[in-house]
């Protein structure tokens, strides 16, 4: 694994957050003024099971450096079992990405409840740092999509 020494590198990170838990958890970390990097941009989805692997591939193609999916804790899914689907799908997708040479640390699934503002901020800090260390994602980026 290559370690990126460039401290100025600002990774682009896409976070898919379940509307019922992690999105509210992200709101809570805002309400509590808990800091995490501006690199993280959140996309609201109704449930972690709404996250199509296609979205993640698209993000990497468009130049994202890391993608994180946040859902309800196992057993707490608003829709009974959606987070279990997400967990299985992402396990498969991540192993495929690994095969393609996308480092495991660029992708992550995390369970964050609506009450865990602190955990949300902590997770985002850790994840951003991990992606920053990896450097820019070049494997899957489609150069035709790169901004000029």
């Amino acid at each position, binding site marked *: 694994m290559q370690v990126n020494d460039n401290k100025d590198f600002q990774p682009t990170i896409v976070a898919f957050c379940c509307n019922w838990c992690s999105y509210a958890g992200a709101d809570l970390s805002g309400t509590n003024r808990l800091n995490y990097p501006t690199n993280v*941009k959140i996309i609201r989805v109704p449930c972690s*099971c709404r996250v*199509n692997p296609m979205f993640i591939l698209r993000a990497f193609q468009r130049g994202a450096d890391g993608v994180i999916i946040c859902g309800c804790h196992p057993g707490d899914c608003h829709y009974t079992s959606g987070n279990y689907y997400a967990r299985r799908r992402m396990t498969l997708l991540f192993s495929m990405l690994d095969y393609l040479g996308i480092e495991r640390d660029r992708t992550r699934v995390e369970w964050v409840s609506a009450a865990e503002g602190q955990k949300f901020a902590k997770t985002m800090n850790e994840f951003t740092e991990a992606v920053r260390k990896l450097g820019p994602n070049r494997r899957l980026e489609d150069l035709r999509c790169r901004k000029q």
Partner: protein
Amino acid sequence: MQRIGVFVCHCGTNIAATVDVKAVAEALSHEPGVVVSQDYQYMCSESGQNLVKDAIKEHKLTGIVICSCSPRMHENTFRKAAAAAGLNPYLVEIANVREQCSWIHKDIATATDKAVILGKAAVAKVHLNAPLTSMESPVVKRALVIGGGIAGIQTALDIAEAGFDVDIVEKQPTIGGKMAQIDKTFPTLDCAACILTPKMVEAAQNEKIHIHSFSEVTDVKGFVGNFTVTIKKKARYVDETKCTGCGLCTEKCPMKKVPNEFNMGLDNRTAIYIPFAQAVPKVATIDPNYCLMMKTGKCGVCSKMCSVGAIDYKQQDQLIEEKYGAIVVATGFNPIKLDKFDEFAYSHSPDVVTSLELERLMNAAGPNGGTLLRPSDKKHPHTIVFVQCVGSRCDDEKGKPYCSKICCMYTAKHAMLIREKYPDTEVYVFYIDVRTPGKNFDEFYRRAVEQYNVHYIKGMVGKVTPKSDGQLDVQASDLLANEQLHINADMVVLAAAIEPDKTARPLATMLTTQMDTNDFFTEAHPKLRPVESATAGIFLSGACQGPKDIPETVAQASAAAAKAIGLLCKNSITCNPCVAQSDELMCNGCSSCEKVCPYGAITYTDKEFRMPDRTTAIRRVASVNPAVCQGCGACTVACPSGAMDLKGFSNSQIMAEVDAICK
């Protein structure tokens, strides 16, 4: 061509302090399709909303983006404002630049950049928003209550009182549940039957209430306001409509050695039986496992005795189907089996009993006619040891991790009743903690100690050994005195933990409601929605949701009834329009979506399609019932052909957001 309006809120200084609001509005004004981009102090205020409304009308906007606080906060406010200005409310998108931007970042330059990107993502999404309309779904004005204990009875009475029809489904031959078996109630010590049986009769006589006794729910289909439930009326081999409950058959039945469930197996009943004198409905039931006629074909005494000809040995289980608008679950609890707790010698000595068995032993309608006698030799016990927390607060697989809540109080009640009736009896209670939160509860327990001189000893019983002289050696610890005790007891009473009824789990699967690891039904919110399940139209009543005493059960039963009545009062309900939709032309009929749907909202139908060569073909395609779909989107990912999409969060919308963020 889309005409999009962008409105950036300052939120006083909440956003404006770390985000250059004017720069955001300026940057977003150059986005494709944006015709107006404004900023304002408080967008959610009356004048802020008017600004939005006026802009919609003036610029003939086809979509708006509000850069403000979390959509969880004010999405509805702006949707209503849009609707008031004639714009479909689902053409509104919120960019969360307060909770997820200005409040977490300190550097103005980077925070502004991020706010612009969030705004761009929202603009990109709103380009693809489609106008959505909420569906209306009719409500069947009838409720189903599953379980006929005090919880179910109270819920049914309250719903009937409001003027709606209610059906009670009870698996036993009579309603009444556990409360019917209880002798006295704490903390008032009034007799349980005296306060319960009038309610049972009231339920039976209420024209709005229909009791399906000796019945079970076998299937539930449908959704809030429109459930279709299959009820199995088990064969009781007696025609309910003819039986008068005279009880002659039960007197004459020659098979008299059947363990009596109502008395916890402490005495016997006949093969044809009425559980107890005040049973509702008061109808006999034949137990086919013991009936001589059913087993050997030789008897028929009851049939000969019955003057109205109600006996029918050939009766079959019967399935009936009913439609309901709301379902209340009131399946209740049972004491756990104690076979794993060998140390208390429950399986070895008849004089070691559970608290529910003690209730029957002390009850006037119980096996001893109300005199407390040792089960083994029918002698009066002089020393009785109570053991608390048997199986409760137990972290291994033998017991339950939770506190069963009612044991402290009923043990104090038992101890007090015994000391009151038989002052020559010494009563010991071994406890870990005495928990008595509740109105007049602690006073009640103190009365047991101070007035009735019940010996409360902090510590647990380690071992109960039956001795040759018929007594029980109770080995226990007295933690306060720091010593081990040996007590010669005549009887030991175990406060067994309570657990949800075994029928609850399959029922939860049928109802698609959630349960915790202990099989208690999970409420929609532990504090603010305690009587609703997370599944719309399913309500929870009584101990099926967690251990409860009678007053709490009745309170929750009435609360569940109030929620059900609130639903039944409506003629129709509005459904969330952000639901899945299948593109029939792309669907290949593979059933992948049907398998992942947690609500059973997807069905397959055969439809006729015109093919390119001008022939018609029948194809099997998925269709989503928008009233059942809750919009989780599991199916959209499972669909291999990309036919399934979620309105409001479509594949193209989310990918537009991804693109905008990564650009």
